[in-house]
Structure formats: structure tokens, C-alpha cells
């Protein structure tokens, strides 16, 4: 397998392309996800289709840069229309997305069927943009992707502070005197460009996943935007390369969907295992919290008993410690376990007859607890 990667020229080109795509969409996707605009990717990529078809109709050329320019223009136009609809009517963002997505895609299909009717038009390959056809990537395409990628990432670095602030709190940005309108527009243009770059590889339908998934996965591992952007680029690149290699190892596996499956697995893994935010961590943390809360309750009961008897060392049987609920064998066991745990924390003590009492330290803990509650 390794020497296949090292020797197969097409595979190298395609892997490099997918990696570049992963990096670019990972970086720009981070901003889209934070701004809750990840579905914009879906709308823009579908809306690129009529642009591609029109570019071909007007120039009769299938050069990547011309087709992508057409895609870029129609992608930007669709974004502009979506934002205008939201601004000038009561229609919500999601409805505007769905509407424009289907209308533009329908327009693209109309143009594609129109092109098919033109005699001598060598239109074969235009439909590849719908599902993506990574294997058709040429060295020139990679160069275009590379140049665009460098431009986009340089812009991100230059306007880092501005992009960060409009992504998190654009009202605050405005109050600081940033021109949010210009910065947001620039960011939109860059996100649309990133989407267009991916069309050839993963196609209009799956491009939204490339924009969303790496960023969502990266988000789980960190709370810092800079780390998130780098991680997201890394996840994007890794899934691009692995997806490409998998699809070439097994015959008839399409590249775009394989990349999406790989990045989705990374997302699921991140959701489960990322420290702090991950579901598994959360589960254990919740259990621990539940346990301490229950232990606190037991301790408060001990405290009340001690207060009633006005004697700290007066010990009690477990059936008295938890008087409010009927005791079963199971809950008695649990209660003993909690008391043991309280004992090991030095908050309660056991006497020779297996009876329990609160300690000085336990008293202090409970009193502090109530004080905190009062605050």
C-alpha cells in the first residue's frame, strides 16, 4: 500500500488535492460553524451549478479556472440573494437557504439539459460537479487550489482579529469601530471561494460536509479559535488523504463520499472522546457529580441528627440516617457505600457497632455548604 502511494502519480495528485481541499475547507469552515452558517455551504455549493453551466455555455471551454469562476459568481450571487431575502422580509434564514438552493440547482439542471441539446458541444464532464470526480483532478487544478489556498489563509492571518470578533460578537465589534459589514462580506466571499474549490473533488452535494464536519470535530477538542482552526485544517487534510487512499484501494469506491465518511468518523470519535466536552467524559463527570450530591445529602442528614442530639459523637444506625425513604437491601448497601466514601473523605466516622456520626470536619463542610447556598 505504501509503495502504491509513493509511486502512483494520479493517486499522489488526487491525495494532494484532497488534502489541500481539507485544509482550506477546514479553516474557513471553522468560521462558518461558529457563525452558525454551516448550511450556507450546502446552499452555495448547489447554487454553483448554474454558474458552471453558464461559464461553459459562454466560453465553450472546460478549463477548470473558467468553470470555477462561473461557480464563484453564481455562489456569491446566491449568498447575496439569501441575505437580502432575510434582510427585507420575514422569511427566516433556513427557508431562504432551501428556496435558493433548489431554485439555483434547478436552474443548473435546466442549463445542463440545454447544453446537451447543442450539437457538437462537448459537455461531458460537467455533471461531474454534482457528485465530484476526484480522479479527474489534474496537476494544473492542484496548482489553482494551492494558490487560492495560500491567498485565503494569508487573508485569514492578516484579518485574524477582525474575523474572530465578527464571528463571536458582531455587535461588540461594531461598538469598537470595526466595519463589520466589510469584514463579514470579505468572510462570505472567502467561505464561498473555499466551497467552490471543493466542488471538483467532492461535488456540490457533499461539499457542505467538508465545510462543517472538520470544524465541528475540532471544536470538541478546544475552546480556543486558533487551535480550532489548525485542528480543523488537520482533520480536513487527514480525512481527504485517507478517503482518497481508501477509494483507490478498493475498486469502485467513489472518492468524495469516502472522504465524507472518514471525516464523519472523526466527528463521531471527537464527540465521544474529546476531553472535557466529549460525551464519555461528560457521562463520568455527571456520575461523579451525582455521587457527591447524594453523599452531601447523607452528610446533611447526619448533620441534622447531630444537631437534634446536641452531641457530635452520638452515632446512628443507617436506618435512622436515611429516614425519609423506605429502606431496601439495595439502598441500604448504597447508603453504606456512601457513608464509607464520606468516611474516607474524613467527613463521617464509624464506631464499633457499625453506627455512624458526623466529624468536626464534616460539620464544617456542611456549614460552609449552607453559607454558600445563602450567598
Amino acid at each position, binding site marked *: 500500500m505504501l509503495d502504491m502511494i509513493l509511486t502512483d502519480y494520479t493517486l499522489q495528485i488526487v491525495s494532494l488535492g484532497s488534502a489541500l481541499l481539507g485544509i482550506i475547507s477546514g479553516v474557513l469552515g471553522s468560521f462558518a460553524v461558529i457563525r452558525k452558517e454551516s448550511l450556507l455551504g450546502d446552499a452555495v455549493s448547489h447554487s454553483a451549478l448554474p454558474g458552471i453551466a453558464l461559464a461553459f455555455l459562454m466560453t465553450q471551454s472546460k478549463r477548470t479556472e473558467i468553470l470555477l469562476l462561473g461557480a464563484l459568481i453564481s455562489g456569491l450571487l446566491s449568498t447575496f440573494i439569501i441575505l437580502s431575502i432575510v434582510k427585507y422580509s420575514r422569511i427566516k434564514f433556513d427557508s431562504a437557504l432551501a428556496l435558493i438552493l433548489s431554485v439555483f440547482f434547478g436552474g443548473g439542471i435546466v442549463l445542463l439539459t440545454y447544453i446537451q441539446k447543442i450539437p457538437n458541444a462537448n459537455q461531458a464532464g460537467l455533471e461531474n460537479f454534482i457528485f465530484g470526480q476526484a480522479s479527474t483532478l489534474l496537476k494544473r487544478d492542484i496548482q489553482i487550489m494551492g494558490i487560492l489556498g495560500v491567498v485565503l489563509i494569508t487573508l485569514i492571518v492578516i484579518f485574524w482579529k477582525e474575523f474572530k470578533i465578527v464571528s463571536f460578537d458582531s455587535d461588540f465589534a461594531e461598538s469598537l469601530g470595526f466595519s463589520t459589514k466589510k469584514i463579514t462580506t470579505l468572510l462570505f466571499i472567502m467561505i464561498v471561494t473555499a466551497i467552490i474549490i471543493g466542488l471538483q473533488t467532492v461535488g456540490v452535494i457533499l461539499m457542505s460536509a467538508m465545510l462543517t464536519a472538520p470544524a465541528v470535530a475540532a471544536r470538541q477538542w478546544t475552546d480556543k479559535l486558533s487551535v480550532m482552526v489548525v485542528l480543523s485544517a488537520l482533520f480536513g487534510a487527514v480525512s481527504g488523504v485517507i478517503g482518497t487512499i481508501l477509494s483507490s484501494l478498493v475498486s469502485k469506491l*467513489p472518492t468524495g*463520499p469516502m472522504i465524507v*465518511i472518514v471525516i464523519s468518523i472523526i466527528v463521531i470519535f471527537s464527540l465521544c472522546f474529546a476531553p472535557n466536552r466529549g460525551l464519555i467524559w461528560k457521562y463520568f463527570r455527571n456520575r461523579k457529580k451525582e455521587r457527591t450530591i447524594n453523599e452531601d445529602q447523607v452528610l446533611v442528614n447526619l448533620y441534622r441528627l447531630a444537631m437534634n442530639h446536641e452531641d457530635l459523637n452520638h452515632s446512628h444506625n443507617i436506618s435512622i440516617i436515611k429516614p425519609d425513604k423506605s429502606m431496601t437491601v439495595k439502598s441500604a448497601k448504597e447508603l453504606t457505600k456512601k457513608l464509607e466514601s464520606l468516611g474516607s473523605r474524613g467527613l463521617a466516622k464509624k464506631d464499633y457497632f457499625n453506627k455512624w456520626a458526623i466529624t468536626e470536619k464534616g460539620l464544617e463542610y456542611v456549614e460552609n455548604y449552607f453559607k454558600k447556598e445563602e450567598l
Partner: protein
Amino acid sequence: MSPQMEIQIIAVIVAVACSLPGVFLVLRKMSMMSDAITHTILLGIVIGFFMVNSLTSPFLIVGAALMGVITVFLTEMLNNTKLVSEDSAIGIVFPLLFSIAIVIISKYASSVHLDTDSVLLGELAFAPFNRMKVFGIDIGAKAIYSMGGILIINLLFVIIFFKELKIATFDPALATVLGFSPALIHYSLMTIVSITAVGAFESVGSILVIAFMIGSPVTAYLITDNLKSMIILSGLIGGLNGILGYQLASFLDVSIAGSMAVMTGVVFLLVFIFSPSRGLLTIVSRRKRQKIEFAGKSLMFHIYNHEGKEEEALESGIYTIKEHLQWNEKFLKLIIKELKDKEKIYIKDDIIKLTESGREYAIKSYEEIVSGF
């Protein structure tokens, strides 16, 4: 019946059937769910196909509808972890399910007729070839009956559960208090959406399903405030889009489904711009009028504030006032002209002065603003 007629009938039936659940998707801010569902039903069809090995079995429709509901469920599960926002959850779930479907198709099903293009794009032109026969007698295109059935189901659903749908959409809390679960209504609606999408994609393709589900309700939403009239209007608009789209397609000899989506966009655009109550033209002119009115009031407050004081000549002087209001010259001239025409102000010795009615008006509107707080 001629095939052309049949195609248009199918288009109208599909449009109306889609717009019924679509109205509620739009109102519940779940429009993009239609996008997700129309894509993931492909996986349901693929899995169903491998289980029964037939493309005509009704089992496929069941599988696909189930997959639509699963999509909604997965999206909500992901959203409920609070780790992923709702839009990102949709953006992750449906591409994954769709990718799995495409991988399975390209790996195993390339020998059978199950290609992704027809799912996405559909071809209405072929619908009349698929005939419905009862005892060997041709009684019309199959799609008319299958979509007609779905239309009836949707109609019954909306009519029977109209009150429940309405309350669950506009006030979920009230729905819970009244004793019916919003979740149940939600999943019933999603099942209806999935079944409709499955039925419709065969004839028109999944993208057009979105256009019909969202496009016509959104257009109707711009015209009316009443839920009942919104449902009826979106059905009418959907039917109109279908017929116009067919005419366009046969005129240009292009994809029928695509043309219908385009016509949906055109009709929406016209309503968006020209709708009398909330059209773009109305809104822009209303905003402009409000701006002028507000600026007029500001100018009068300014003059009133400096009336009779030492600095009046400077603050309210016709050549210097623009420095104090920080307006551009053209705008200032427009406002002054407006107010002069209404005889609220007059100019004396190059100083702007309030007329008697102007002063009264300024005081009255100032009090209105203050009492508003």
C-alpha cells in the same frame, strides 16, 4: 389523455402534496430538514432494495420513509448533546447517510437500474411511460395514482390534525399543557414529509421536492398572515409553478423538473418585490419615509433646543447647521424642503426658525417619544 396533460397533472399533484407539510416546515423553521430528508431517503431506498431485491416493492417506500424519520431523529440526538448546533447537526448527518448510500450503490448496484442521477434530478418526462393497469386496462400514469394517494394522506393529516399542528407550531408550551405531545406531532409531520419526499422524488427528483416543499409556502408566507389561507395559497402557487415550469420546459426543450424549480424562483421573486403588504418595494419606501420623518423631527428638536439662545445663529444657521447635525448637504436640503413645504419651519436672516405649528408638532412628538420609554 395526452402525455403532456398527464405530466402537468402529476406536476400539480406533486406540488400540492409537497406544499401541505411544507407550510409547517417553513413555520417551524425546519426548512433545511427537507433538504436533509430528500437526500437521505436514497439510503432507505438502497437498503430496502437489498432486502427485497426489487425496485418496485412498496417496502422500498417504507424503508425510505423510515430513513427520513431516522435522519430527523439523528439530527436531534446530535443537537441534544449540546456539542453541535442545529445547523451543523443537519450538515453532518445527511452528507454521511447520503455518502453511505452512494458508496453502496457504486460498489454493488451498478449492474441494476438504480442510479443516483435519477434520484436527484428525476425525469418527469418519463412518468407517463409507467402505466397503471387494472385487469389489463390502462387507467393512466402510475405516478398520478401514487402521488394522488399521498396527496390524500397529506390532506387528511392536515385537516384532521389542523388544530394540533397549529398549536404545536406556534405555541409548543400550550400544546403540552393541553395534553398532546408536541414531539408526537413533530414526528408525525416528519413521517408525512418523508413519505411525500419518497413519493415525489421518483417523478420529479429530490431537489425539486425542496422547491415545492419550501418554495411555494415561502411565497405564500409573503402574502398572508393566516395559516389556512397560507396552506391554500401555497397549494395554488405550487400548482401554478408546476404548469408554468412545464410550459417553459417544453418551450426550451429542457429538464421539466429543473424548469419548475426555476419558475418557483421567478414567482417568488415577483411576489418578493411586488407584494403589496410586505414586498421589497413597499418595505424600502416605508423605511425611506420613516427615515425622512425621523430626520425631520431631529432637525426640529435641534432648532427648538437652540431657539432664542445666543448660539442660535450658529447652531441653526442655514450654512452652519449641517456641522452640528453631521448630515450631508443633499440630505439636509431634502429635509429642509420637506419641512418648509409642510410649513413647519421658515427661514429668516439665514436662520431656520420653527413656525407656530412646527413648534407644537416638535413638542408633541418629543413627548410621544419620551412617554414611549
